[in-house]
């Protein structure tokens, strides 16, 4: 299958001389949800802006749906919807007019039924006659999404769509994203909320300092890099560990009521069986066992820290 968005060695150096993208290559498949994670200033917005035509790339190429974004910019851009990170809206226009304008700007014939559907999906229908400056921040963000969806894009870029958005709206948005995915729309979103990537993405890309550190299936990534912890709840609290358990790196938690054991799921032996046997031999009674997997957040923080250490070295 060919990628719907094909980014090849994309570089961007801003006028001041700052290199925000240091050669990013990325293939995004039709219909997938890709989450881009990265610390502030990593280059996420720059990457999206370069694809959408807001920033001129210094070198490299991008095609969308097989259309080069420079030579066939019309065909490429007609496929793209963009929800920017910052809220930029014409303050005096009503919601309805600004959304209709976006549709027209992208060369689509007027279709009020579609626009109505979009506004209803985003719970904006009641606000359609309100001027955008009269809306709350969360509603403004929804208007931006409505504008991006007004022209039925095949590829949707969401640059931190849930920044400053309450829990309810965030769930609404995830639902919307699910619906769009079901309709075959490819979605690229950036976020600082790891749980967001974890909840909705198919693949996760990590960017730091203008470089794509990795792109991987979310599940594979979690399995590969995930560390699991086993928490052993004890019948009677302990304050010190018997010597026979010294080699496990156990941590006493919850004021001695439980022990925590971290292990690598990819390791040949997890050591759990032996640990449990040793615990029994040491006379510690177990009440309950619980395992948990490390989140993307931990993986991500680890990756970026590794990267920084490399740079420092």
């Amino acid at each position, binding site marked *: 299958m060919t990628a719907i968005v094909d980014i090849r060695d994309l570089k961007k150096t801003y*006028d001041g001389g700052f290199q925000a993208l240091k050669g990013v290559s990325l293939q995004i498949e039709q219909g997938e949800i890709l989450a881009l994670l990265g610390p502030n200033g990593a280059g996420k917005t720059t990457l999206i802006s370069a694809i959408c035509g807001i920033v001129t790339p210094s070198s490299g190429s991008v095609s969308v749906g097989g259309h080069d974004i420079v030579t066939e910019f019309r*065909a490429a*851009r*007609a496929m793209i919807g963009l929800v920017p990170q910052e809220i930029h809206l014409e303050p005096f226009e009503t919601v309805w007019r600004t959304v209709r304008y976006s549709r027209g*700007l992208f060369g689509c014939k007027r279709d009020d039924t579609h626009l109505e559907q979009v506004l209803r999906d985003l719970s904006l229908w009641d606000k359609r006659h309100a001027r955008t400056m009269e809306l709350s921040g969360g509603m403004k963000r929804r208007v931006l999404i409505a504008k991006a969806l007004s022209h039925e894009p095949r590829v949707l870029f969401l640059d931190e769509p849930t920044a400053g958005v309450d829990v309810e709206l965030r769930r609404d948005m995830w639902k919307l994203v699910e619906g769009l995915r079901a309709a075959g729309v490819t979605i690229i979103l950036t976020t600082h909320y790891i749980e967001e990537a974890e909840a909705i993405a198919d693949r996760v890309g990590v960017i730091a300092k203008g470089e794509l550190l990795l792109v991987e299936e979310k599940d594979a990534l979690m399995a590969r890099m995930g560390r699991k912890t086993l928490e052993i709840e004890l019948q009677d609290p302990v304050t010190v560990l018997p010597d026979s358990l010294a080699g496990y790196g156990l941590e006493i938690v919850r004021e001695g009521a439980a022990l925590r054991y971290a292990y690598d799921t990819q390791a040949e032996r997890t050591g759990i069986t032996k640990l449990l046997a040793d615990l029994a031999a040491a006379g510690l009674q177990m009440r309950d066992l619980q395992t948990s997997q490390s989140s993307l957040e931990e993986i991500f923080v680890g990756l970026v820290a590794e990267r920084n250490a490399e740079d420092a070295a």
Partner: protein
Amino acid sequence: MNLTAMAAIYRVEMMRFFRTLAQSFISPVISTSLYFVVFGTAIGTRIDQVEGVSYGAFIVPGLIMLTVMTQSLSNASFGIYFPKFIGTIFELLSAPVNFLEIVIGFVGAAATKALFIGLVILATSAFFVDIRIQHPFAMIAFLVLTCVSFSLFGFIIGIWAKNFEQLQLIPLLVVTPLVFLGGSFYSITMLPPVWQTISLFNPVMYLISGFRWAFFGLADVPVGISLLAIAGFTAICLGLVWWIFRTGWRIRS
């Protein structure tokens, strides 16, 4: 051509105008009336006629030009500066439109507004003086061309400007003096010879002269040269706009 996009831009820009219609309408009417009171009445009693035309009528073309030029500039420069200022320009840059479509949308709307105001002034003038137009088609052609070329120029200023002060700077510092010194309220033949020569370097003089010729059949310079001047000005502005969009100067980082 993405006609739908062009129409969308044009419509939104015109909406801005209609939202403030009363304002857009009343201020030129009042200022025109004031000009007639001040120039027409006060000076007109001293200068009876200019080349066979009553002074009151003589200043009408200049007055229209003055307003149309400043209106074109301010409408067009604000029209493109505003999205830059509030950030909504991202949408234009990401849309499947080329520079010509954007320019036609913005400049077309700005020129339409200026044209409308120009006609309002013409109508207002008719209350004060007796106006006959010898070459109505030429009059309209000059008016439209002036609206378009100055809107283009305003568009460039709007892209160039980094703040509101700069937005006002060129119109205030360059254009207004050129318009006043371009023979809006007098014939340059009334000036001493040195100033007549200097006036020949003022591009606005050619426009006003040509426009006045369309009214009264009298001109400071041959009407062909006036046409050439305005065509040249339009071409230069168009070239600049094309270059701006090709390089992304001040709009695309």
